[in-house]
């Protein structure tokens, strides 16, 4: 039994323009001591997904199950969830300046976090614990800095303070939502290093939400790639990076500039991500997919095993063997497309080819 098991989670929001289907049937699990990377572009549903688990995305219609320590997080009452949040599942957000209260000292905020979950801890003890935590996350002179206000910390130090706060109650699971996106490269390296070290020390499970494939390559064990509210592909990180099956995963990897192809033309994914109110029929990725086939227009593929182990799963109609970036995988894809593409899909393919990377429909 995994630490967290989410099955068929669906979240939608009613708006004046229609129903936004933010998460459409996502299942995943995280084990103790492991890191799951959730990758996706803006609007792929990755943040709504985890905020729903913590009851931080109010107003949505939620269905599915999220089992954590024998409890279904989705059915907990707000006050029960408050006990889980912070104590058992901690969150680190992208922007540490807005998640720390500007008018309270950093130490006070960590102290309150500890005392709100355990009233028996004295102020003195909680302060001691805050000093110790700040030292553990690498804040120099923690005994003095505990009395600083957030604005007296640099961006990297604020993120460290957030991590200290997340660690305060030794949670079993940490959800980090783009924790390094606002930081410089050298500071990002420090923070990732810190997270990895802390995880090794305390065997915490980590969910790392990011749009940066480099961060995932560095820190994750397993990766889930999301597109338009669903998992496009799930696998351990080596399969994702070296044997991608879903054309979206492959497209993401190919659109990153890298040193081996410096100066060459980049291969972007054409078009724009779809509106979550008006999703394309069939596979949501088909209007941007260069391997589009007839059935992609009408039938939405399920996540199926595409590798030897069953761990590698992809939601795509391409045949199982079409995983990888080498020539033979490309050949399998080409043959599948030859057989599976007729008039309807050919029109989509033509539209993609005719609008090379530049013309995307306006989201209006």
């Amino acid at each position: 039994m995994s630490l967290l098991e989410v099955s068929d989670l669906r979240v939608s929001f009613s708006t004046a323009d229609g129903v936004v289907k933010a998460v459409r049937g996502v299942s995943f699990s995280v084990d103790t001591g492991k890191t799951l990377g959730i990758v996706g572009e803006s609007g792929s549903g990755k943040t709504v997904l985890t905020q729903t688990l913590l009851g931080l995305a109010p107003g949505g219609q939620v269905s599915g199950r999220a089992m954590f320590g024998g409890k279904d997080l989705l059915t907990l009452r707000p006050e029960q969830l408050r006990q889980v949040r912070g104590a058992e599942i901690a969150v680190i957000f992208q922007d540490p300046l807005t998640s720390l209260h500007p008018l309270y000292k950093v130490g006070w905020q960590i102290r309150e976090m500890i005392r709100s979950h355990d009233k028996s801890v004295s102020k003195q003890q909680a302060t001691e614990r805050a000093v110790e935590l700040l030292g553990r996350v690498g804040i120099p002179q923690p005994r003095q800095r505990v009395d600083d206000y957030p604005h007296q910390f640099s961006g990297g130090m604020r993120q460290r303070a957030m991590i200290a706060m997340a660690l305060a109650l030794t949670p079993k699971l940490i959800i980090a939502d783009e924790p390094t996106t606002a930081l410089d490269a050298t500071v990002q390296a420090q923070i990732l290093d810190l997270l990895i070290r802390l995880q090794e020390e305390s065997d915490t499970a980590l969910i790392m939400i990011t749009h940066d494939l480099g961060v995932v390559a560095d820190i994750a064990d397993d990766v889930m790639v999301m597109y338009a509210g669903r998992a496009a592909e799930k696998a351990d990180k080596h399969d994702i990076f070296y044997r991608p099956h879903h054309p979206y995963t492959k497209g993401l990897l190919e659109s990153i500039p890298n040193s081996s192809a410096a100066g060459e033309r980049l291969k972007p994914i054409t078009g724009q991500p779809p509106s979550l109110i008006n999703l394309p029929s069939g596979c949501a990725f088909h209007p941007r997919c260069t391997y589009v086939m007839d059935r992609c227009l009408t039938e939405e593929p399920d996540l199926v095993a595409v590798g030897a182990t069953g761990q590698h799963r992809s939601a795509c109609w391409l045949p199982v063997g079409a995983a990888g970036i080498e020539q033979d995988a490309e050949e399998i894809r080409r043959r599948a497309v030859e057989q599976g593409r007729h008039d309807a899909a050919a029109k989509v393919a033509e539209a993609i080819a005719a609008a090379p990377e530049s013309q995307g429909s306006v989201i209006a």
Partner: protein
Amino acid sequence: MSETLPRDTATTGPGETDDVLVRVSDLVKYFPVRGGGLISRTVAHVQAVDGVSLTIGRGQTIGLVGETGCGKSTLARCIAGLIPTTSGTVTFEGHNITNLPRRQMQPYRREIQMIFQDPYGSLNPRRRVGSIIGDPFAVHKTASGSKRKRAVQELMERVGLNPEHFNRYPAEFSGGQRQRIGVARALALRPKLIICDEPVSALDVSIQAQVLNLLADLQADYGLSYLFIAHDLEVVRHVSDSVVVMYLGRIAEAGPKDPVYDAPRHPYTNALLSAAPAADPEAAASRQRIILTGDVPSPINPPSGCRFHPRCPKAQELCSQQDPPLEVKAGDPSTHVTACHFPVQEGEVLARSGRTSGGQPR
């Protein structure tokens, strides 16, 4: 404060020195810090840019990298003439354009345009896209009426927007498309230099590649020069001919991109390159990361000697006393310059901490 810099640091490659578009010499920009009290007087200076020289060749792309607060955006704004410089000169095609009065600067403003990072913040949300892109024509009185509309629509088509959408508002476009609007506006007067300040940082990866390809196409078609500022080193490597690495207002290392990326000499460049996440699990696991301690110091009171010395894994006593000149190090091409007393040698291992055990399964 200003060491003797060799002329043409960061030249744009062999044979390009005759074809210099912009030459920046010993540029300094200090911002005053005023004290409190009734009579506020200047108590200190933020030394944002402190003695930077570089040249931008025609049709070339210079990549400018460095962390937050290293002065890269200030340098860009000084070159574009958006803020006055404290000292030093900027020449454009041989004309000194440093701190020119408004009227005299006007013709050069057509030649130097800027693209900003935030495609949401740099477009007025209450104006239609057609009039935003048409602004340069109005300001410089080069086209009006139906002629302007036609020019705007041509521009929109050129940057990959549907020309029929000129009546829409910025909010109706996605992030990538808004950045295209910014590109169209910058392109309107056919400038010779476009300064791109983090043009793709706010965009998703797949969209980022679209915009980078567009910038490359425009450069090929119009012979544009770019000063390309970004913190993503892979993006800079992809677009640039030469790279300038800045740290706390000074150039740490500069040169053609291949030597700088493949054999970086400055410990800071080494640290930056090792810190950049690569989308390749095996490379990430086998890499020796140089984890720098601490943060970038305050530019109000920069460290003595080499400004990098408090964070440098190689720092020795000399580094805190003497400012290292920006010079060619032994074995480097004459265009590759480094400001370091103890440049990194080939094969030298700098990793001070970090994950030493490499690719162990976690």
